[in-house]
């Protein structure tokens, strides 16, 4: 009976994920999955005899309180670091389950159990320390730029080999201490693997850590022979894997390239157009261009999140819609710091999701678009990714805003973006630069609009 109920929980997870794939049903899907989780926990508790309730109840209360407080108080702009932190908690929980099993059995396992114990420990610990480095980079307590250690890749390779060798030692000698050394090496490896990765590559990293947290849970499922953990973990591993691949494709890079190259540190080709004149605009110029447009597309980037400009953008769009202008939003898959980051911010500002266009929907529209308003985005609208085969980002799919009649770029300065590459868009004939903080710029355009 227990197994059947666990299977029921797993089926609810699958239905839940299925419904998460459409905005209409997504909320229900999340609820279904949470009901599945509740069933799994209740079944587990009901099946236990002769146990100490103290640590269970204390853990549920503390964890529930902390989790709820974090979830209910987080600002939408801080969502990437919260997701990173939750990944980390999931990873460490799976590693702790394996450690508790080592304590219980004295590390006496048959070979296959030893292997899955070592995998839970290794993957769970890497997920934990890697996620918290990502968390630090995202909330600004660690520098977001890539931190390259000398011979970093060699060190990581040696650590990875050492971890596998220690695991083999642990399994063959049934030595508990050796399993703990695996944990230690994995924790260091997680830190060193994420620290060289720059902020703009975070969508790939978070997706990959998400996948890892699922795989760690599945491995813990093998350790305790529990099908609910195996199924749930495998589903999450698959979901994270799909997102990782999608994010990699959106940057025209392989996952290995993201993990091992420290992108922001690579030197860009010689910048040859640095002296060309730039057309600087005032808020009034921008307001006039927008007010007399028929259709406007807003392209948000990480700068929008930093400036917390989503509500101001929404207000501007409402003003323009009242003047009969059609407003849409074009969102690059890797805009921001996690998959779908911009969509969440705009949803928070009450932008209806049917106004949000993805890459394939928006590119055919740009030639017929009167004004494109780029706010805090740079590399994802850089035409050299399409035109210049010497550019480091050549081949990356971009939003082709340069095909629109007029482009307004809101940016604090002319400094190059994350990839350190100059952007020919800024020097193009139909481009106006509005140098300002994203939110202040949008607000000044709104007040200028009332005079048009």
């Amino acid at each position, binding site marked *: 009976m227990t197994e059947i109920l666990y299977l029921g929980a797993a089926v609810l997870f699958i239905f839940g994920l299925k419904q998460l794939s459409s905005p209409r049903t997504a909320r229900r899907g999340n609820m279904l999955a949470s009901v599945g989780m509740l069933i799994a926990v209740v079944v587990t508790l009901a099946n236990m005899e002769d146990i100490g309730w103290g*640590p269970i109840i204390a853990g549920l209360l503390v964890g529930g309180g902390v*989790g709820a407080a974090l979830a209910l108080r987080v600002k939408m702009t801080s969502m990437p670091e919260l997701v990173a932190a939750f990944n980390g908690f999931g990873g460490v929980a799976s590693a702790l389950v394996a450690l508790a099993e080592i304590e219980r059995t004295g590390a006496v396992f048959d070979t296959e159990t030893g292997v899955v114990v070592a995998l839970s420990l290794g993957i769970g610990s890497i997920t934990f320390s890697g996620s918290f480095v990502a968390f630090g980079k995202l909330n600004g307590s660690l520098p977001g730029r890539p931190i390259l250690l000398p011979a970093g890749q060699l060190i990581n390779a040696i650590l990875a080999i050492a971890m596998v060798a220690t695991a083999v030692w642990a399994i063959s000698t049934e030595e508990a201490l050796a399993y703990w050394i695996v944990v230690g090496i994995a924790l260091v490896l997680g830190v060193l693997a994420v620290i060289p990765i720059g902020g703009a590559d975070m969508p790939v990293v978070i997706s990959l850590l998400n996948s890892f947290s699922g795989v760690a849970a599945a491995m813990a499922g093998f350790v305790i022979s529990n099908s609910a953990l195996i199924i749930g973990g495998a589903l999450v591993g698959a979901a994270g894997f799909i997102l990782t691949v999608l994010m990699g494709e959106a940057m025209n890079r392989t996952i290995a390239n993201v993990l091992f190259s420290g992108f922001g540190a690579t030197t860009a080709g010689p910048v040859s157009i640095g002296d060309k004149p730039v057309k600087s605009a005032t808020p009034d110029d921008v307001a006039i261009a927008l007010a007399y447009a028929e259709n406007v597309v807003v392209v948000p980037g990480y700068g929008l999140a930093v400036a917390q400009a989503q509500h101001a953008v929404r207000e501007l769009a409402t003003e323009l819609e009242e003047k009969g202008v059609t407003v849409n939003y074009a969102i690059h898959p890797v805009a921001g710091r996690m998959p779908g980051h911009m969509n969440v911010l705009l949803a928070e500002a009450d932008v209806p999701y049917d106004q949000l266009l993805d890459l394939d929907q928006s590119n055919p529209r740009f030639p017929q678009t009167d004004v494109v308003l780029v706010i805090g985005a740079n590399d994802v609208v850089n035409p050299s990714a399409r035109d210049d085969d010497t550019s480091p980002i050549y081949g990356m799919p971009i939003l082709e805003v340069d095909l629109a009649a007029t482009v307004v770029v809101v940016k604090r300065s002319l400094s190059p973006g994350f990839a350190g590459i100059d952007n020919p868009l800024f020097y193009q004939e139909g481009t106006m630069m509005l140098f300002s903080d994203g939110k202040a710029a949008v607000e000044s355009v709104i007040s200028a609009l009332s005079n048009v």
Partner: protein
Amino acid sequence: MSEVFISGIVVFVLAAFVGLEVISKVPPTLHTPLMSGANAISGITIVGAVIAAGVGQGTFALVLGFLAVTAATINVVGGFLVTDRMLEMFKKKPGRSK
């Protein structure tokens, strides 16, 4: 290899394919809620944590169990709640054609 272990591998592989199939059509708008919802599901390790905390003998084992339950519960409760908060915001404009 024991039969239990082999059937575990069968379940794992099939579930991974179900996951790939179910999730491959998620629109970009929902990528963040998908990720945080999936993340909450990875908190299923809470089941293992509860068992570990329940059967642990000795102070150290109980501390490990307590920490496991705490971390997994943060993941589960926080993950589902924050996903719900996000999804609550995703609205279609009423009466908008197209």
